[in-house]
C-alpha cells in the first residue's frame, strides 16, 4: 500500500530528489521552533479522512428505511423529496448518473459526514453536523434510491466498504496515472 507507480520523467524526478534530500537533511529537528504540539482534542478536530477500505469509519449503522425519514427531515428541502427534484444537487437519477457515477460508497459517507447540511462555519475545527448513525442511514438511503442496495440492508463500518459501485472501473485506480 502506498507505493506510487506514477510515470515520472527524469526531468520531473531530479527536482523531486533534490527536494527530498533537502527534507531528509533537515529532518533532525525544527528550524524555526514556531507552532506547538496540538492537544488531543485539536488533533481529533474536524473529520479525519475515510478511505475506500473503510479506515476511519466510526461505529454505528443505518438502513435505507431509517434514512428515508432523516432525508425527508434534513435533506429534502435542497435535494427534493426523493433526491431527484433539486433545487440543488440531483442525487438520484436514471441511468448511470448522479451518485451511480461515484467509485466508492465510502466517499458518499465521507461527503455527507463532512459537508451536510452546508451551514456557515464560524470555527476552524467545525465538522459535520450529523451523527454517524444518521450518516450511515442517509448513505444507505441514497444507495438504495440509486438501485445499488436493498431497502433493509444495514450499512456500517464493515458493510459499506464492500459495496461495489456499478461504475467503478475494474482497475485498481488508486495509484494509476493514465495519460490519454
Amino acid at each position, binding site marked *: *500500500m*502506498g*507505493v*506510487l507507480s*506514477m510515470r*515520472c520523467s527524469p526531468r*520531473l524526478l531530479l*527536482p*523531486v530528489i533534490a*527536494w527530498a534530500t533537502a*527534507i531528509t537533511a533537515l*529532518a533532525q*529537528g*525544527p*528550524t524555526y521552533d*514556531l*507552532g*506547538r*504540539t*496540538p492537544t488531543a482534542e485539536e*488533533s481529533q*478536530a*474536524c*473529520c*479525519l*479522512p475515510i*478511505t475506500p477500505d473503510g479506515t476511519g469509519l466510526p461505529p454505528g449503522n443505518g438502513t435505507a428505511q431509517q434514512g428515508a425519514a432523516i432525508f425527508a427531515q434534513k435533506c429534502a428541502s435542497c435535494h427534493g423529496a426523493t433526491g431527484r427534484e*433539486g433545487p440543488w*444537487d*440531483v442525487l438520484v437519477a436514471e441511468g448511470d*448518473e448522479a451518485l451511480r457515477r*461515484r*467509485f*466508492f460508497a465510502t*466517499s*458518499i459517507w*465521507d*461527503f455527507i*459526514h*463532512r*459537508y*451536510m447540511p*452546508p*451551514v*456557515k*462555519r*464560524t*470555527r*476552524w*475545527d467545525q465538522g*459535520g453536523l450529523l451523527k454517524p448513525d444518521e450518516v450511515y442511514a442517509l448513505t444507505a438511503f441514497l444507495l438504495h434510491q440509486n438501485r445499488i442496495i436493498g431497502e433493509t440492508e444495514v450499512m456500517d463500518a464493515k458493510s459499506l466498504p464492500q459495496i461495489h459501485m456499478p*461504475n467503478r*472501473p*475494474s482497475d485498481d*485506480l*488508486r495509484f*494509476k*496515472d*493514465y495519460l*490519454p
Partner: protein
Amino acid sequence: MKLKKDDRRRFLKRGAAMAGVAVGVLPPTRGQTGSGMSPDSISPGKHLPYGVRSRFEATQRDYSKGGGQYRMSGSAGTPLQDLHGIITPSPLHFVISHGGTPPDFDPKEHRLLIQGMVDRPLIFTLEELKRLPSISRICFLECGANSSYRLSSGRYHNGTGPRTPMETHGRTSCSEWSGVLLSLLLREAGMQNGAHWLIGEGAEGGWTISIPLEKSAEVMVVYGQNGEAIRPEQGYPLRLVCPGFPGDHSVKWLRRVLVSDQPHLSDRDEGQSTVRADGRNRFFKPEMPPKSVITYPSGAHRLSGPGFYEITGVAWSGKGVVSRLEISTDGGRTYQDARLQNPVLPKAHTRFCLDWSWDGRETVLQSRCTDETGEVQPTIDEMAKIWGATKEEWKENFRTPSLFNPIQPWRVNRDGSIVNALFS
C-alpha cells in the same frame, strides 16, 4: 526604432480608445460589462481610505447559481475580455463555491494543523505562519473544468453555448500569492518515511483533496493575494495554492494538512477522474494542460469595420512557462507567432499580442499555446480523437472531459459580430 514605433502605436491606440463610439468600438454586449456601476458619490474628489474604481467602470463577474448535472452553490467567472496584462484584480477573481455558505473566520481564531506521518504534529496560528520565511509568486488558479462544456452546460445550454471569454474560459485567474512554502512546514514537522500523499483539508464543509507528495514542492500556504489579505471568497484567512494544479487542489479555508501513505480518495479526488470511452480512467493528474484564449476581439465584442486591431489574449500552462503562442487569422490554415508580453512566468497567465488588419471578410481567429515541455494545445478534433469521442457527441451531451484545453476559435462575421465557433 522599435520603441518609437511602439510609442506611436500606443498613442494612436489611446486616441482610438478616447474616440470610443465615434470609432465604433461598441461597448461589450450583454452579460460582460455588467450593471455594477459604482455609486455616484464616488467621484475623483473623494479620498477614500480604501479606494474604489471609477464610476464609469462596470466590468464584473457573472455570479450565478450553478445548474444542470454539476450544480454548485455558487460560481463566478472572471471577465477575461475586460482585463489587461496578467494580474486578475482580486475582486474579479473567479469563484467556485461547492461547500454551501462560505465560512467566516476570525483570523485570530484560525489554526492550521500539520499531522499524520510526521515526527512532530504541529498546530500554527496565522501570526506564527506570518513570522516564518515568506515567498510571493505570481501564478494562475484554474478550475479543472474550466473551458469544458461540462462546466458551462448548466449555465448556457439553453442558449447558444458560452459566448464570451468569461463564459468559455472565465474560471481561471492570475494573482500574486504570498505565504509560506508548505515544504517548510513539513520540514518543521519532520516527515516520516513512507509518506507519499498530502491531504489538504479546508473548512468549507470539510473539503479534502489528495496531492501527490512528489509534485508538491511548489505548494504554498497562502495568506496574501495581490498585496493584501486573501479575499473572503478565496478562503480568508488561509488557503493552499498549488501552482499549475486544478483549482480544487488549492484548498480554501485551509485547516489541516495530513501527511499520508495513501490518497484519501474523497469525492473531490474522484472528481479528478474522467473515464474515457474505452473505460480507461485518468486519476491524479495534477497539471493543467497548455491553454490559451483570444480575449480581444472575441465573442464579447463587435468590430466596427475593417482596419487595424491588436489581437490579444492570455495563455497559460500548469506544466511551466508558455514558450510559444501562435495565432491564426484564417481558421487554423496558417499560424504566426504572437508577441509575449513580459513578464513570462511559469504557471502564470501570459499576455500575448499580434497586430492584425481585418479586411472585412468572414474569418476565424484562434490561438495555439505551446509550453516548455513541448506540449501543444490541440484542436477540438484532435482532442476528440484522443478521448475516443466525437465533437458532435460532446456538443450534444455536454460531457467534455475535465482538463479540456482545445484551441478556442472565434468566428468574425462580415457585420463585425463575433461568435464562439468551437463546435462549428
